[in-house]
């Protein structure tokens, strides 16, 4: 049971966890990751733009890939777009599995690919104006260690 959502609204971590836990008695491990907007260096807001359609497809492909690699029982990926402020949740990845190793690995795999393949872009707003965030080489390296071509 997989869920992929791109939304402007906030998400509720508790209810997303409950949704995955409710899959059934076979769920022995539930790993979740929540990314939040960091208020570094006087950040006022973060505005996220995405490529509607491709974002969902790209995330779905990597959820499929995760399911091919690990025995998963359910995956939820939520990414927010629009204007966010420090402290806001920006991304949620939840993975349910029978055992923890698969759940930890799949959650990390999905986050690494979200950062390097999903067509989303961040623009930072500070007192002196706005600036698009540059991609980081470290994120590419993190994704490359999983060894998929794309």
């Amino acid at each position, binding site marked *: 049971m997989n869920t992929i959502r791109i939304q402007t609204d906030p998400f509720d971590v508790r209810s997303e966890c409950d949704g995955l836990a409710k899959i059934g008695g076979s769920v022995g491990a539930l790993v979740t990751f929540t990314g939040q907007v960091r208020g570094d260096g006087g950040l006022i807001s973060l505005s996220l733009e995405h490529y509607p359609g491709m974002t969902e497809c790209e995330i779905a492909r990597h959820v499929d890939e995760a399911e091919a690699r690990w025995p998963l029982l359910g995956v939820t990926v939520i990414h927010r777009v629009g204007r966010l402020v420090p402290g806001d949740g920006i991304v949620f990845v939840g993975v349910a599995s029978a055992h923890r190793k698969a759940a930890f690995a799949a959650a990390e795999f999905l986050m690494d690919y979200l950062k390097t393949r999903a067509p989303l872009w961040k623009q930072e707003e500070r007192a002196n104006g706005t600036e698009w965030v540059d991609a980081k080489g470290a*994120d590419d390296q993190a994704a490359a260690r999983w060894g998929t071509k794309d």
Partner: protein
Amino acid sequence: MKLLYFAWVKQKIGRGEEELRLPAGVATIAELVAFLRARGPGYAEAFGDPKRLRAARNQTHVNFEARIEDVDEIAFFPPVTGG
């Protein structure tokens, strides 16, 4: 073909999408970049340094050698920064 632009590519060009008939002699993403670069100052700025750009054909990441057709949806954008 449908062209889509995102993030600073969109800002420099001044619009997020446009229709274009595949120009004669343009068969790859790289050739399309060279064609678009010559369309005006905003395009010149957006496409001036292709190394800073990424492309998608019909909502799939492709490299600049990928072949394109008039029915395609082609998108240009900076390296992604979600997550």
